[in-house]
């Protein structure tokens, strides 16, 4: 049966049989790096195409349909165009920071990828504080945005960066609290343990209403954290031209654009891991027959299916809700989401202590 675990094991054995252990380890590092970059490129191309198609469906039009069947090569063509373009640096900009910012954003996105389990036993780094690591490293991505805004020496960029910074820092709190509510149920910070604890049902079903509330809060918070509509104040076209990446062009702009989609994928993968069991197939209690049928579907398909489902949800938001004003945005977080998620955390703790979950 097809499984990613088999492929990695074969590669690992082959390398260790043919080379010394140190060399084999180094080769594996290189392979993991190449695989991560390839995944990024594929995700970028795929998700941009998906976004345009979803937008087209929502607005009852066709979307990209010229390059390749159903327009699937449209984004490849766009990327080629962006690579060909000249990368401009504005005159008054701090050149070092201006050029560093897109790479910081990309490196942070790559680091977050490490503890995510893509399939059964298919994980780059099974760190014992997995969830804490995720929320720690994802707080770094705001630095790249702030850097880009300041180094551009442009008032629109600066305003966009400040809005984005305020937004990310405040919404991180409720995202963190809803992640913690799942940690309370599992009793472990490791991603692998969290997935294994959903053997007999995903947390969104097992955790009753509190788990559902924390899922809703999580989705709202991560939509804001990735600067997506309706929270895309940082790059509100009608007010700030393009926000923090106004001055960027060519490949550096492409990196920011790519990072936005990578971040959407990552937060959706985290959401799928915490609330929908990651690669764990749909199991219902003790229905042995049903569970065995579900086990025949490979775990990687479960993981990517759930993640793409959540991504579709976030893309759906974009065409459903109007953009918020900055004061409404901060009011929503500090006056509604944060108190609700704190109260929800207490509720979740009570459920976990009394053992009321299934």
């Amino acid at each position: 049966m097809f499984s990613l675990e088999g492929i990695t094991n074969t590669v690992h054995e082959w390398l260790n049989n043919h080379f010394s252990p140190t060399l084999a380890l180094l080769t594996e590092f290189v392979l993991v790096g190449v695989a991560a970059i390839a995944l990024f490129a594929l995700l970028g191309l795929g998700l941009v195409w998906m976004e345009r198609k979803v937008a087209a469906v929502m607005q009852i039009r066709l979307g990209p349909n010229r390059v390749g069947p159903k327009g699937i090569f449209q984004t490849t063509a766009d990327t080629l165009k962006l690579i060909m373009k000249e990368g401009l640096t504005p005159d008054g900009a701090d050149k070092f920071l201006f050029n560093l910012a897109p790479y910081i954003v990309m490196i942070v996105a790559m680091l977050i990828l490490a503890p995510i389990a893509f399939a059964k036993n298919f994980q780059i780094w099974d760190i014992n504080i997995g969830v804490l690591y995720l929320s720690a490293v994802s707080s770094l991505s705001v630095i790249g945005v702030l850097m880009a805004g300041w180094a551009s020496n442009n008032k629109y960029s600066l305003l966009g960066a400040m809005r984005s910074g305020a937004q990310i820092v405040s919404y991180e709190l409720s995202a963190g609290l809803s992640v913690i509510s799942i940690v309370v149920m599992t009793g472990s910070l490791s991603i692998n343990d969290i997935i294994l604890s959903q053997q007999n049902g995903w947390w969104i079903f097992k955790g009753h209403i509190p788990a559902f509330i924390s899922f809703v809060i999580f989705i709202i918070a991560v939509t804001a954290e990735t600067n997506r509509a309706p929270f895309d104040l940082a790059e509100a076209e009608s007010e700030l031209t393009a926000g923090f990446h106004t001055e960027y062009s060519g490949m550096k702009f492409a990196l920011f654009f790519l990072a936005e989609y990578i971040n959407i994928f990552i937060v959706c993968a985290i959401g799928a891991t915490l609330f929908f069991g990651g690669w764990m197939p749909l199991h219902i209690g003790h229905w042995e027959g049903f569970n065995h049928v579900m086990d025949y579907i490979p775990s990687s398909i479960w993981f990517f299916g759930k993640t793409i489902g959540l991504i579709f949800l976030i893309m759906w938001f974009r065409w459903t809700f109007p953009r918020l004003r900055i004061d409404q945005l901060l009011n929503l977080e500090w006056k509604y989401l944060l108190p609700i998620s704190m109260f929800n955390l207490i509720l979740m703790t009570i459920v976990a202590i009394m053992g009321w979950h299934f």
Partner: protein
Amino acid sequence: MNASVIIFYIIAAFILGAGILAVTTRKIFRSAIWLLFSLIGIASLYFWMQVEFVAAVQIVVYVGGIVVLIIFSIFLTQKSGDEMPKPLKNRSIFSALAVLFGFAFTFNLIKQYGFKQIESTPFEVKVSDIGNQMLSTTEHGFVLPFEVVSILLLAAMIGCIVIAMKVKHNEQ
């Protein structure tokens, strides 16, 4: 010379290099970015020492909190493209001398003391151990400092709001 030693030297050079750049560069935003790199280097030193929990706390609080706060205050009070004035020559020379002397003196003391290392017991930090000891009320529990720190944080929060609050003038 194994891999772990080489990694330590790289991390140490990174921390010190970024730290020195943070206190000497004349562009204030670059200074904040170098400070950020230095703090990330310290977090990776914690990873190297296998205290992942402290490393993650370091990144969450310092990088995600304090540096972002510092950058915000730079945004609010400074102009992009400005440079800070050069420090007075006398002052920088004498500070450098004082600092070098202090460093030599302190490190000499450390070197002569000769710490005795205990290799027998393995050092591992489990998150559950930290949690249990943090809230235990026995002899080695830390519940009292924990509560005191909570009150300190509350006081700091209220203090910040009071200090930064705009005073409304009665204009009649």
